[in-house]
């Protein structure tokens, strides 16, 4: 799996078309500001991810636009009337509008929560920066993959390494290639693999944890035994050994392997939480109301854990990224340039440690990885606020 959808002219057109929907609704409802913002959001999202980004953004943008003008009078339920006066039957369109307004208000409250926490917002900005860098960067900065043994050699220089200059802001690597272009193009594969690993970890952990807690008995004991066994294995050395035996050419396979080694911690936490949540009074009330197991799992138990799960996913992504960079740095994964990890490996093996003019070769990818990780961790602070229903007050 690869993130095929990159910024493209088609995406720009798709984004602009998608943006027309919130824009027109905004004009008809006389909320020009939010309408315009919705247009820009759709344009940006469509530009970045084509249809996959544009269509969902239509819904979100329209919801926000509607939420600005939707008043309680539009909702029959909230009008100050007696039961005889209220018409509870509503058209399909009215219901959709009401639901969208609710969604829009939640989005606005969520965005406000995102901004409220300074550290979290900084993390969000960092992630947005890396998103722009990997999605839109390639349009501006072409990939410089061919060695430049002769044309970029400087007078009297021993190596092709070069410090930052006006032409090459981050300098040149040991083959005289532009380091900035490698930073721009070298993050995507790494980030995608790490995200895949993190999401897979959570999926495995949540499913197994929920089954263990709700079914109990033999499956529970079996899964706990397996989890404890995996937890006792030192993961990174095992990965290094495995890398010697099998090739990690397929990055998705690597992500899967990382997930298989990483799920036990989260699974045990999920199991413990489900065990505690299923004893809650409101879950018991749902049993008494005979609402069925799917409802209890999806509507009563899961919403309580979603913030924990998402935040754990982010920490899994962080761990996976370090593991991948570590493996690449040790040279245990087949090289595919451009890649931040490969840059660190090459910088070290080509002697960048010993030359001041080559510092950028090592520092740039290290900083890129470190800043991305920092942004991820800071971002979780904001997520805690976004998911807390208590902060949805004042709606």
């Amino acid at each position: 799996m690869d993130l095929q959808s990159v910024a493209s002219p088609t995406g720009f057109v798709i984004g602009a078309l998608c943006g027309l929907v919130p824009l027109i609704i905004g004009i008809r409802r006389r909320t020009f500001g939010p309408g315009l913002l919705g247009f820009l959001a759709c344009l940006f999202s469509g530009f970045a991810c084509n249809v996959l980004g544009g269509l969902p953004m239509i819904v979100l943008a329209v919801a926000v636009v509607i939420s600005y003008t939707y008043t309680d009078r539009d909702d029959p339920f909230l009008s100050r009337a007696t039961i005889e006066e209220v018409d509870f039957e509503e058209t399909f369109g009215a219901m959709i509008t009401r639901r969208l307004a609710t969604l829009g208000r939640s989005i606005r409250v969520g965005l406000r929560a995102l901004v409220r926490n300074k550290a979290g917002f900084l993390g969000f900005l960092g992630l947005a920066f890396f998103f722009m860098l990997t999605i839109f960067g390639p349009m501006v900065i072409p990939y410089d993959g061919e060695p430049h043994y002769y044309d970029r050699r400087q007078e009297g220089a021993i190596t092709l390494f070069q410090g930052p200059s006006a032409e090459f802001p981050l300098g040149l690597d040991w083959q005289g290639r532009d380091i900035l272009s490698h930073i721009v193009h070298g993050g995507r594969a790494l980030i995608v693999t790490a995200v895949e690993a993190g999401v897979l970890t959570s999926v495995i952990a949540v499913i197994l944890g929920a089954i263990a807690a709700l079914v109990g008995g033999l499956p529970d004991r079996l899964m706990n035994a397996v989890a404890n066994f995996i937890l006792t294995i030192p993961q990174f050395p095992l990965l290094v050994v495995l890398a010697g035996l099998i090739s990690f050419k397929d990055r998705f396979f690597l992500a899967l392997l990382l997930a298989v080694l990483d799920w036990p911690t989260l699974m045990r936490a999920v199991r413990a939480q489900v065990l505690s949540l299923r004893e809650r009074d409101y879950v018991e009330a749902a049993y008494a109301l005979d609402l069925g197991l799917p409802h209890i799992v999806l509507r009563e138990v899961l919403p309580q854990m979603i913030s924990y799960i998402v935040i754990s996913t982010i920490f899994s992504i962080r761990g996976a990224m370090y593991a991948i960079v570590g493996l690449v740095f040790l040279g245990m994964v087949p090289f595919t340039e451009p890649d931040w990890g490969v840059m660190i490996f090459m910088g070290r093996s080509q002697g960048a440690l010993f030359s001041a003019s080559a510092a950028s070769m090592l520092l740039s990818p290290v900083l890129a990885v470190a800043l991305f990780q920092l942004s991820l961790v800071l971002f979780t602070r904001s997520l805690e606020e976004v998911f807390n229903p208590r902060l949805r007050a004042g709606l």
Partner: protein
Amino acid sequence: MGDTLSQAPLIELQHVNRSFAQGRTRVNALQNINLAVEESEILCLVGESGCGKTTTGRIMVGLLNQSEGNVLYRGRPVEGLQGKERAEYRKAMQIIHQDPFASLNPAHTVGQILSFPLSHHKMVEGRGAVRRRIWELLTLVDLTPPGDIVNKYPHQLSGGQRQRVSVARALTVNPRLIVADEAVSMVDVSIRVSLLKTLHRLRDEYGIAIVFITHDLALAKYFAWGGRIAVMYLGRVVEVGPTPDIIAHPAHPYTRALISAIPEADPEITRSKQRMQLRSEDIPSLLEVPPGCAFHPRCPFFVDGVCNTDLPVLEPAPEGRQTVACTPLTRGMGLRAHGS
């Protein structure tokens, strides 16, 4: 056959025992419980903590299975119910929990909380009808105007309001019996009476039977004046009968002790009131229930050779219409207090 079934009580516990595993031993939380609740009846379960009131209520609702004995719903054993009948039984029995802060899911609005059972069981047809019913239910439990409540999350409501939402949620499935498990004990005193009145109105207008679990005999007296009280002690029912009879002529020494402990609002009366002296203040552990009558180590009327050997059974009391489990009383030996 159909006739006998329709005359059968709404829910009936016959010789119900319930034990819980605790380490290697088993604790008998309930022993030989025989209770029946008729349609639109009010039954109060009274007793100190750990006496099995809540366990009894949970068995009635079907949240807990009995270890031995039978639970009959309209004359039919609950275990034998299948499919549609079982769903009907589950819907007919609802529970209101003690803690209003734990009984509502913090992730859902009041409207969602009420709409889940309405749409899942198709109690009403169509979206508009669901919203109309939510409006009706909120009005019914005195949460007016409904528009102020429907989009709120539980944490935005007061304890009393949440408890009313719990009542409304129980009413979504048109229950025949509501077990109110200490439903007002965590609510502010000033709200209690109005909440109790709401529960009363449900019985008067919709014929919903109410099993009211409480440790407060004064509350039971107020709430169940037209109903019955069952006094429980260490997993057994020790006295059961119409509320006025139990309050006026308490037969069992434990009931007498409870009634003498009710504080009066008038300090003069409280000062002059004779409190019954128990021989011991400690409640015995459920792990080591005393032989014979479980109350005998604390009972001021203890008769050696009778109370500590013979297991008392519920028999008509000498005075009043209630039945009582006290061997000296039911054998006509009378009660004489020991000097302490």
